[in-house]
């Protein structure tokens, strides 16, 4: 009898071990790919940032923190960092506001709701590079749609060089980015809105609350968790901004709209691999700091553990 129990126990143990082995086997491809093609290159980038490695100036040489010293006194680099953070703040704020507007409208029950939900998705569906090219044409100085409308409706006496001056180029990038990303915000907010029970609004109406009071006192507070998550996603994403700026201004005029990703990429393209790596490591930490800050602020961690 005892023998029987033992063999069942042993069998169970064996089963557990084989289950565990199966789990590792099923996870192996993911771990190998992510480890080999993302974690390993990130570590490689860290190591490369400690070397002088310029294609046109061999040999490759270990210089410790030499690249970092250069980084801290590099005015153009700090300007790129400033632009990246400013961009993230302004763009994410505008996207949240516009996305909220989209979501509130398409959440209402009206005849064209289905159509409107489809229309809102269109900017999201168009690849960033293609929307960037389209906006570049819209911003064109001589024959762009925007200047045509501005002059035609007397908003401005003369054509504006949208991508030609640093302030207007920055705003142009923000507008194109907000256009492309507000739909994502709207989709998340809409999911949140649908979870708010209609009875709350009915009760508010009975108590005589106006439409704007209903929005500020019911909708916004109840959407808070969704807003926090959307902000995390979009902030991290906009700190990495690359594609849009690459096409619209290439970082210009005169480096004034360069983001850190653009700046790092240019260092790579110019053949300065060590310095490019240093900029990349810095970008990595900027995003890490923002993420930790948000995780703490949004108590997102509890959500993750669930």
């Amino acid at each position, binding site marked *: 009898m005892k023998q029987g129990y033992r063999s069942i126990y042993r069998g169970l143990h064996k089963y557990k071990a084989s*289950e565990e082995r199966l*789990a590792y086997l099923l996870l192996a491809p993911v771990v190998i790919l992510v480890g080999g093609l*993302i974690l390993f290159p990130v570590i490689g980038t860290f190591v490369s940032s400690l070397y002088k490695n310029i294609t046109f100036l061999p040999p490759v040489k270990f210089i410790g923190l030499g690249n970092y010293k250069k980084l801290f006194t590099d005015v153009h680099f700090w300007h790129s960092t400033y632009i990246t953070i400013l961009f993230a703040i302004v763009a994410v704020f505008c996207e949240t506001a516009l996305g909220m507007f989209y979501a509130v409208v398409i959440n209402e029950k009206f005849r064209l709701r289905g159509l409107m939900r489809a229309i809102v998705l269109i900017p999201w569906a168009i690849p960033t590079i293609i929307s960037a090219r389209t906006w570049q044409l819209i911003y064109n100085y*001589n024959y762009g749609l925007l200047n045509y409308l501005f002059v035609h409706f007397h908003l401005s006496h003369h054509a504006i060089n949208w991508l030609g001056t640093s302030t207007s180029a920055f705003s142009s990038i923000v507008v194109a980015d907000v256009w492309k990303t507000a739909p994502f915000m709207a989709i998340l907010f809409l999911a949140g809105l649908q979870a708010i029970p209609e009875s709350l609004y009915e009760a508010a109406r009975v108590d005589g609350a106006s439409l704007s009071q209903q929005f500020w006192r019911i909708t916004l507070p109840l959407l808070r968790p969704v807003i926090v998550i959307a902000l995390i996603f979009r902030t991290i994403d906009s700190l990495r901004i690359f594609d849009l700026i690459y096409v619209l201004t290439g970082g210009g005029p005169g480096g004034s709209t360069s983001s850190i990703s653009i700046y790092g990429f240019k260092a*790579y393209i110019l053949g300065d691999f060590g310095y*490019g790596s240093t900029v990349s490591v810095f970008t990595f930490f900027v995003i890490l700091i923002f*993420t930790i800050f948000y995780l703490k602020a949004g108590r997102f961690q509890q959500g993750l553990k669930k």
Partner: protein
Amino acid sequence: MSDKRKKQLLVWIGSIAIALICLIPFIWMIVISFSKHPDFLASNKIPYIFTLKNYVEVITTHDLHVMDYFKNSLVIATIVTIIAVAIASFAGYAVSRIKFRGKTSIILGVLAVSMFPQISIVGYLFKIMTKIHWINTYQALIFPYIAWVMPISLWILISYFMQLPTDLDEAAMVDGANRIQTLLRVIIPISAPGIFSTSLLVFISAFNEFMFALMLTSDFHARTIPVGIALFQGLHGEIPWGQIMASSAIASVPLVILTLVFQRYIVQGLTAGALKG
């Protein structure tokens, strides 16, 4: 005016505003792609003349390579989608059904990767791909893309598998199926909607990716359509806006149609990816 009427009016005005904002750039792309003179707004002397010339040139002029870029993008994105969704399903199944040591740290590790900036990978990736002579090949993009879409795929699939009752697995296993059979014959067929929305999102992000493709390809043998359009140069110097917009329309109209037809799945995928932490 009653609150109800006021709300109705606001919704209509809002809808018109949203439609204008969302559609004008897209319509403008189409308008220019069919225009003989892309600069027709410059003065009253230049008329708008409808033409198919831009499309014909882009499709038939071999030296522009637009069709090559388009084909490369389709092939790469399709392969990435198939492989990525397959291995993410296996991993997602293991995570949602089997107890094992190190589960939380592996999953948090993979998800943390999704916040990494591409720039902190692309330089070293270039070094690796140069060393193994993969620069300007499909596989130079396929493998990094699979790794890159892993966090989002896993995130959606795990949240989907978690919703399925474990009774299903148990019933199958009582009937003598092993884990792999259970996964392939029970879980995956039931999860078809979740797998489909993951596939759509993976395909779209692989199709749209820019930085890796810019760095790791050098010509039409592997260059993808976003890079082709970003670096588009006419055969004669000036910016050929008609051709650029025609190529853009060719590349984005299929995506727009895909998104509109499968809107429900895309919205499900995006909200599962973001909200079900």
